[in-house]
């Protein structure tokens, strides 16, 4: 299916459009459900009126101050993780290529733990995570660089860095005093509880800046999936595209981790689940972002309700999603 308008033209896959639309609706539904329910239930019409600014004062307090920021943060962080995962799976040409496994998330954790131990404020901890993630990525990229960065070398160097940082993290945890260790431990599982607008806004800004870049590199990245030579033959500057894509993927992962802690497995599973649904060749950015948003808000909702009143950290739920995803990969490959 194609759409042409004057000199403009795009090629559209109807199924991908429908799936995208459905994912938007599901994300919205989950968001409304997450805002409406909890210890104090707000009827859905009140949620909607409160969201648009004419609710009762109580509803506005609960919706606008407490629940909406958390849900919006979840949506944005999920989208950022989904996009980041899509980028790295495309670059590594592997459904297991995820920032979780190649040291970036672990580097963010190191920064976050150091922030906690240094007694930093929430903002400083977030800054530590951001710096840790970006710093790790620069190091991994530099170490993997040998006349260009091949996807597999990035993965292997990343795996080495991941192992190193994970043990540095546990060393820091065993060294820290018991209170810091507990705070850091909680932060490490990843959580959306207590997230306010000041968490959501940086992620929103990052997405606003980085989404156009994503759109710009997504087409050449699709060509690179066919091999470096094939892409170069099409006139793509492979190294430049790859470096840009890595930068975008790392920044998304860093910003998301800074906001919600290292929530692992969303970046891993969102792109492939989206791909299964859209039946598109290779990973698709938009659907991956939407799927990430749905997965994270859905997991957060479940984490709050499954064992209510006990609140689970959302990271526990996403770990379960990760396990289920691996099982899915296994099952698919059997036939």
């Amino acid at each position, binding site marked *: 299916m194609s759409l042409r308008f004057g000199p403009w033209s795009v090629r559209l896959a109807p199924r991908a459009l429908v799936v995208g639309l459905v994912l938007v609706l599901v994300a919205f539904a989950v968001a409304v459900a997450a805002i409406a329910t909890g210890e104090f239930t707000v009827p859905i019409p009140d949620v909607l009126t409160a969201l648009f600014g004419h609710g009762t004062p109580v509803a506005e307090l609960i919706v606008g101050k407490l629940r909406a920021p958390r849900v919006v943060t979840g949506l944005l962080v999920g989208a950022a993780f989904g996009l980041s995962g899509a980028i790295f799976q495309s670059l*590594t040409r*592997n459904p297991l290529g995820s920032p979780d496994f190649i040291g970036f998330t672990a580097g963010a954790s190191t920064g976050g733990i150091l922030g906690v131990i240094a007694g930093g404020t929430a903002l400083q901890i977030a800054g530590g995570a951001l710096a840790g993630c970006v710093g790790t990525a620069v190091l991994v990229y530099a170490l993997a660089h040998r006349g260009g960065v091949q996807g*597999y070398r990035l993965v*292997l160097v990343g795996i080495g860095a991941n192992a*190193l940082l994970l043990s540095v993290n546990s060393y820091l945890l065993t060294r820290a005093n018991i209170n810091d260790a507990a705070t850091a431990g909680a932060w490490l599982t990843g959580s959306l509880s207590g997230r306010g607008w000041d968490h959501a806004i940086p992620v929103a800004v990052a997405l606003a800046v980085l989404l156009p870049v994503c759109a710009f590199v997504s087409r050449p990245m699709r060509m690179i999936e066919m091999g470096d030579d094939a892409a170069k033959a099409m006139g793509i500057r492979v190294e430049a595209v790859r470096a840009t894509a890595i930068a975008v993927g790392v920044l998304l992962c860093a910003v998301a981790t800074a906001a919600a802690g290292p929530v692992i497995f969303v970046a891993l599973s969102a792109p492939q689940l989206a791909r299964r649904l859209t039946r598109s060749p290779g990973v698709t950015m938009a659907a991956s972002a939407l799927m990430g948003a749905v997965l994270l808000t859905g997991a957060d909702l479940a984490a709050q309700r499954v064992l209510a009143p006990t609140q689970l950290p959302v990271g526990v739920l996403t770990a379960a999603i990760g396990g289920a995803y*691996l099982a899915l990969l296994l099952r698919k490959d059997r036939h």
Partner: protein
Amino acid sequence: MPVGEQVTTLVADEPVVPRGRPAALAGGLVVAFGVLVLVAMASVALGARSVPLSTVLDALTAPNGSSDHTVIRELRVPRTLLGIGVGAALGLAGALMQSLTRNPLADPGLLGINEGAALGVTLALGLFGLSDPAAYVWFAFGGAALASVVVYALGSSGRSGAGPVRLALAGIAVGMVFTAVASAILRMDSQTFDRMRFWLTGSLAGQTSDVLLRLAPFMVIGLVVGLLLARPLNMLALGDDAGKALGVAVTRTRVLTAVSVTLLCGSATAAAGPLWFVGLAVPHAVRAVVGQDQRWVLPYTMLAAPVLLLAADVAGRLIARPGEVQVGIMCAVLGAPIFILMARRRRLAAL
């Protein structure tokens, strides 16, 4: 069956891998053993409180009940023996895995096997309250076996087959899921968490000689089975079909290797927690010296890996006195750069 006989004699008399210099290699094995003894002595003598070697010898031959002697007999000696056992087990497991999968990056920690075993132990201790090592080690075996099956299936799926990078990525993924589940279990039970916090990073400290005695039989069986697999593994190095053509029972060799790896990784992890990289670098270094013949690679690895582990453990005790850095962290700090160097240098099959 004249043809079959010919093939067998060929295998027996003319190993495909050049034999090298048996006398020199056997001598080297003695040297390696000597080095292991020296490092073991160092491990007994050095630590938060270092004691002179003469005191060590006294403590071993004529204990007088002094606090130095008690520390040596009750803590340092069991810890050292545990290090030797765990090192030998993980080193041999790594060498076996690298040989069977023809994958230079195979390592029990990297491929998620040790994390699987650790999840088994966590379940046994955290949920079922088992405390006898000989009982909970079975959970470790179960976890290790599950992990190896899943990782291998994931790593060999897809069109390209089990490339080294794919397998490594599958191992990391599975290992991280297992670790996440284990930490979720521990978070629900703060008492167990406190007990297992150090074990989960990998530590030789805090295990009694009783634990060692309960786990030793499993390690020994795993080591013996592994060493006996050297000859068929030599043949399989040429490929499954070539191995079969040379008269190797391919399936039996694979199953026995898996059993040996499971016993080794399960018991080692039950004793010291999930350790990374012990099984990675040592077989590589050994192969660079003795060549590709598994009949030498396996015993050499078995002696060299505990040297590395004990040295890492001693270093961990010395650099942070009076505290110590757990050996698991030391292994990662030493092993990860080696792994990254390998990744940079080797031209591995692309994804």
